């Protein structure tokens, strides 16, 4: 092959490869741009009421915060102009984790009762879980702090908790007093994720990993202490009545084999696997005292919110199509309601 032919082949090859790349980038940019301009400011409010919120995965409203009526979750949705990768809300407060300017950094945005942005905090890492305490005072998030090829492939997760009342920020739990099986414990490899708050705004549950173990932990914000409760309970979610935790259990204790959505009875310690048999990698959300909701991916970046009874009975059913990251705005359980006492 002469030098001229080689150069010709190279030029033709490079030009076509560049063209393929540009077409791929262009065809991805078009729907993204359209989705970015969807939604109406103030369309979604977070004050208590019979509504559910979620994050849209639909093509034209991707990433936008949406709200649906609790009695018609598959029906018409209102679309906010706020875009998030993860949302949650309770007690009139919302948390929206989203990509900041430049797409490199993330931020946690606190939303007020009218759905407007109250405060934005820069996040370090990729956000993964978000929760609001039932009163609406505390918000929490989990991020992956992981670099790239340079950090030797280690990963870490970090939990942040913000008191929206006082403005106090807890940027990590790693320096708290940790006890494992009631013995003080120190290690460099502590990782926390998936916080869920008790209604008193003092206690919380979360997942902690260390030395190859994944524990359910109970934390106390007033003493800054954490103790382990049991193993193989991840991404806990406390029921509105505070008696049970919905969580994902690694099948046979091995995260490689997928997850089984389960409920732990805190008083008796009994674990009930729920009727959902698909592997659900999500922090479930209670939509009332008997039902949990969660996102299930279905490829192409789309997901649906499903629901399943929290007592192991029944079968899963689709709750909100083309969405994930569900939460109810239905406020704490009112003891005077006509629901049968448990």
């Amino acid at each position: 092959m002469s030098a001229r032919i080689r150069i010709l082949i190279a030029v033709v090859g490079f030009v076509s490869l560049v063209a393929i790349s540009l077409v791929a980038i262009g065809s991805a940019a078009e729907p993204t741009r359209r989705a970015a301009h969807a939604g109406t400011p103030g369309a979604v409010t977070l004050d208590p009421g019979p509504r559910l919120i979620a994050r849209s995965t639909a093509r034209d409203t991707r990433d936008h915060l949406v709200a649906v009526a609790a009695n018609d979750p598959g029906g018409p949705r209102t679309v906010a102009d706020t875009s998030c990768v993860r949302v949650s809300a309770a007690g009139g407060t919302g948390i929206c984790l989203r990509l900041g300017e430049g797409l490199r950094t993330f931020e946690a945005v606190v939303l007020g009762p009218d759905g407007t942005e109250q405060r934005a905090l820069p996040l370090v890492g990729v956000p993964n879980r978000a929760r609001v305490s039932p009163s609406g005072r505390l918000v929490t998030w989990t991020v992956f702090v992981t670099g790239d090829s340079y950090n030797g492939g280690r990963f870490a997760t970090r939990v942040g908790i913000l008191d929206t009342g006082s403005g106090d920020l807890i940027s990590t739990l790693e320096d708290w007093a940790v006890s494992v099986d009631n013995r003080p414990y120190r290690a460099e490899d502590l990782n926390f994720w998936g916080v869920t708050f008790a209604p008193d705004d003092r206690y919380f549950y979360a997942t902690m990993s260390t030395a190859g173990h994944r524990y359910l932990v109970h934390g106390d914000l007033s003493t800054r202490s954490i103790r382990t409760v049991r193993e193989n309970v991840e991404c806990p979610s406390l029921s509105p009545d505070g008696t049970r935790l919905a969580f994902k259990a690694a099948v046979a204790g091995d995260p490689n084999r997928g997850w089984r959505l389960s409920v732990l009875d805190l008083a008796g310690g009994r674990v009930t696997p729920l009727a959902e048999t698909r592997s659900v990698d999500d922090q479930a959300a209670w939509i009332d005292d008997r039902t949990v909701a969660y996102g299930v991916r279905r490829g192409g970046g789309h997901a649906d919110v499903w629901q399943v009874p929290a007592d192991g009975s029944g079968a899963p059913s689709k709750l909100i199509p083309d969405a994930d990251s569900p939460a109810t705005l239905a406020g704490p359980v009112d003891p005077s309601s006509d629901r049968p006492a448990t």
Partner: protein
Amino acid sequence: MATGPISSPSRSASEKVNAPVYLSTIDRPAKDAARSRRPRRPPAGISANVLALGAVSLLTDVSSEMVTAVLPLYFVLALDMSPAAYGVMDGLYTGATALLRLVGGYVADRTRRRKRVAGVGYAISALAKPALLLAGGSTPALGAVIVADRAGKGLRSAPRDALITLSTPEPMLGRAFGVHRAMDSAGAFAGPLVALGLLGAVGAASPAAFDALFITSFCVACMGLLTLMLFTRDRRERTSPTEPVTARAALGLLGSVRVRRLVYAAALLGLATIGDGFVYLVLMDRQGFSAGWFPLCAVGTNLVYLTLAAPFGALADRWGRKRMLLCGYAALCVGYLLLFGPLSATWTTVLVLGCLGMFYAAADGVLMALAGPVLPASLRTTGLALVQTAQALAYLVSSVAFGLAWVSHGPATATRFAAGAVLAAIAVTAVLLPEPAAEEAHA
């Protein structure tokens, strides 16, 4: 010193110096003129083959680093993967390549098709990009793709480095490796920026954006592969009946004192480096940096590395490669000591990153340049693979050991241990490796 069949054939490299120039566009006539004016000096330009290999590495590193930079983002955002699953993925990274590297090196020598073996490595890594798309959210499939990508990397580096040594006269090896490593790290430097630019152009980190990113990465990798196929030339020397490439001959490499010393030196190099991640962690810990700066630390180190790699390589040729390597160690030692030194936060960061970059510029390519002439041409790929494997495995050991020291004694003491280990490495390397005089005797 051993002067058996192991060391004598190394001259074959320089005999091929004046082979024709393959990439006429890169080698400017001006250089040829300069060359003819000083006919007794070695050619001033770097061989076209080395520049072409550098271009291949540059493109391949752009392709792979643009994916590596967003992979965590992709796992978490587009696939909604949980921390535990991500940890499982990470475990696959390490140890996937050591054996393959050796086998690949041996096959390349045995068939004398170094370019082809390197090409297979580049092709595997290129194909891993569309495979990422197809793997979707399946953890085992993603794991397999990542292992394949690493395997490709392991497979290609020894044959590529062997081609560099075989395309370069011995007195210029340091410079050739310096230029190659500078191009290589320029690619690694640009990759994350390309990825950010691409996500910015698409406007969001949506699943569609990641698809476009993987396709683009694949296209860039194909450009690298195309460059390899069109513009690099294999060095297929005639087989010498006295040195058949057999498994026994490959094992015989270890019988040579000079090769063994080289392997020890490479292992020492691996043992003395604690992993940049740890260094950046200390910097962040000490200064209350947020972890978002983590990738920027690597960018800083890379910038110093790519700036200094070529001049340091050239300097090594003139001044002695062993001396250059020892200076690199000294920079590393200073860097480790500065971590808990008396300087202000900003100065500590700037100087530590500078020291790390200087260390890489003075050590990485220079070690290969030291190794090349010691290894017989017929077994050079195997030999280089051996040296690289020793370094990689030792590095794994030192990372674990440093992690343990960090936990038990705290970061300050642990980094001082590390600085002590570097000093020990300097002393042992000074004794182990041949004197510069012995090197220059070849020239």
